[in-house]
């Protein structure tokens, strides 16, 4: 059966121009740009969990922002539910006009429809919740903005359902409290409940567990996994931690400096990594047992800035295996096994 992917990102570029300053403007210096995302393509099927893995500066959060229409791509497209997100948010285009639910609808209303279908979970539950709002109000706010509930009883019922789905049961035990009274894990559950109350089809989870203790991480990841199983929610999970991504995602895309360098089924990427960057990332994951200490393959230095991107393969200055070809030509992402694509000359 041919399934239409719920999310299709094709050749996405997001460049941020840098300010030139007075002298730069007067002398007409070339305007420099940060190429945060520089040609990223992938699809996410319905009910799939895709991990977007990379270090800070790899552009994974920028991809998430563009998926949700919070930024407009410099080039390329993000299609969600068959509609170009940039057109959805900013203007009318063919994809909006040909969609029965969106054509002839005001811009404000269109954005609200997008928000009902796609939601985001942020990294830090200590910062993302309003400290002066009660839990009930935090979770109910989206319902009020979208005027989705007719009565107070219905609203309470939906908030209860969202909180209890997220493991905060009984809900009335929690909803009159303030965020400060909850632990980190409970706060992240509240944040997820706030995203779920609109019953979205897509969740963009941006490092949802990196601020939490290891013992609590598992609970939140299991919750995301359950949401997919029971409600069929599609999840785009961005993280720098391959170990947590390995245990509950279906496919994995490894990003480096604005590009995807390896994309494939999670088990295949972890057991047979083809790109030297992926291999290095896997080798530095600490094994939870001193008997299994491995030779770590540590890359020296850090991810270069996205202004002066190296020519050729953008990973070659840090690559332990680089050959002459890597300095000259940029390797395309090509298929090495069914569904497993790698951007490396040597793979």
């Amino acid at each position: 059966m041919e399934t239409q992917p719920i999310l299709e990102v094709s050749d996405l570029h997001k460049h941020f121009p840098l300010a030139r300053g007075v002298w730069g403007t007067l002398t007409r210096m070339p305007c420099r740009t940060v190429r945060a995302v520089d040609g990223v393509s992938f699809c996410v099927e319905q009910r799939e969990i895709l991990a977007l893995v990379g270090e800070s500066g790899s552009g994974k959060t920028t991809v998430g922002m563009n998926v949700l229409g919070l930024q407009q791509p410099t080039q390329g497209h993000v299609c969600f539910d068959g509609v170009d997100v940039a057109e959805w948010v900013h203007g009318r285009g063919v994809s909006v006009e040909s969609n029965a639910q969106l054509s002839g609808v005001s811009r404000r209303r269109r954005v609200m429809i997008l928000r009902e279908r796609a939601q985001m979970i942020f990294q830090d539950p200590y910062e993302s919740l309003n400290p002066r709002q009660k839990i009930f109000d935090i979770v109910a706010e989206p319902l009020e903005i979208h005027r989705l509930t007719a009565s107070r009883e219905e609203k309470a019922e939906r908030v209860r359902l969202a909180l209890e789905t997220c493991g905060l049961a009984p809900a009335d035990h929690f909803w009159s409290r303030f965020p400060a009274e909850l632990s980190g894990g409970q706060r992240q559950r509240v944040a997820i409940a706030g995203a779920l109350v609109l019953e979205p089809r897509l969740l963009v989870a941006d490092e949802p567990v990196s601020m939490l203790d290891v013992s609590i991480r598992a609970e939140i990841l299991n919750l995301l996994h359950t949401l997919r199983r029971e409600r069929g929610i599609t999840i785009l999970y961005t993280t720098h931690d391959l170990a947590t991504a390995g245990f509950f995602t279906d496919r994995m895309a490894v990003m480096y400096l604005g590009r995807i360098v390896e994309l494939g089924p999670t088990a295949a990427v972890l057991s047979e990594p083809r790109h030297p960057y992926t291999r290095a990332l896997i080798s530095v994951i600490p094994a939870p047992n001193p008997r299994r200490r491995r030779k770590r393959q540590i890359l020296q230095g850090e991810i270069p800035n996205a202004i002066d991107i190296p020519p050729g393969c953008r990973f070659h200055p840090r690559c332990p295996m680089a050959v002459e070809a890597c300095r000259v030509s940029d390797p395309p992402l090509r298929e090495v096994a069914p569904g497993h694509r790698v951007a490396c000359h040597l793979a």
Partner: protein
Amino acid sequence: MAILDVRNLSVDYLAGECALHAVEGVSFRLEQGRSLGLVGESGCGKTTVMMALLRLLPQEGRIVDGQVVFDGRDLLQMTEAEMRRVRWCEMSMVFQGAMNALNPVRTVESQIVEVLLLHDAVDRPRAARRRAGELLEMVGIPAQRGRQYPHQYSGGMRQRAVIAMALACNPRVLIADEPTTALDVMIQAQILELLERLQAELNLSLIVVTHDLGMVAELCDDVLVMYGGMIAEYASGDELFNMPQHPYTRRLLEAFPDVEAPGSTLASIPGNPPRLDALPPGCRFEPRCDFEGRTAACGQEAPLPVEVSPGHLVACHWARRNL
């Protein structure tokens, strides 16, 4: 002889009329050149123990019992002036989040020079600058970059600079509180390797405070697991990771994702760590414990650590009965 011998350390925090028992009866030993990992969830008292060692507790904190014997001297009996000579020169600490606490308007070098002059490690500013350059080189930062400001450094470099600063006066014990949290995986590995190398080169005794079991498995000879302000388990790294005895340690290990066995379910520990103002009467882990060997005693009496094999201490009624 152990360089650091902590015996039965207990710390209270005063909150109005009542005292909260943040740490109770924690003991451990650290030999010269060895490393100890102190593991536990947030709020289990691991940072409090380290602050108590250096006598840097906040005003509300009181050390109510115990001894901290450093190189034959009890730190808790010292005067403040004597203590100042121990801190940084003999026992030094990389604080949690210290990389974000560097002074933004002063160069990194001048901040290291300040330490050196304050603690009389060198007597001349010129010698101090030379030493600061050596320290930076030692942690892998080119000496000339010392003239830059913290905002010109990346996160990993700031963490290296803070480690260099902690080593300024050649301490024998280095305490690192969550040295890799908030850093990227590759940078975490770089810092881990740096600590490993420095420990071997300088024959440092290292204490790593963290909630990351992977880091402990990679770096530490001995591991102390804390729960609710008390010792849960204390053993060599090999024994703790391969023969964990305490139900809490087992659950903690199950909750750690293992990249070599992906797809397997990840266990979590239901419930929350105990609040200090509502500590359970018996074993502090009892409300979250689902171990089949539980008995009524678990809810009534706090278990004392027992030695189940040489050097392996477990505070659990079940372990005591099965001796």
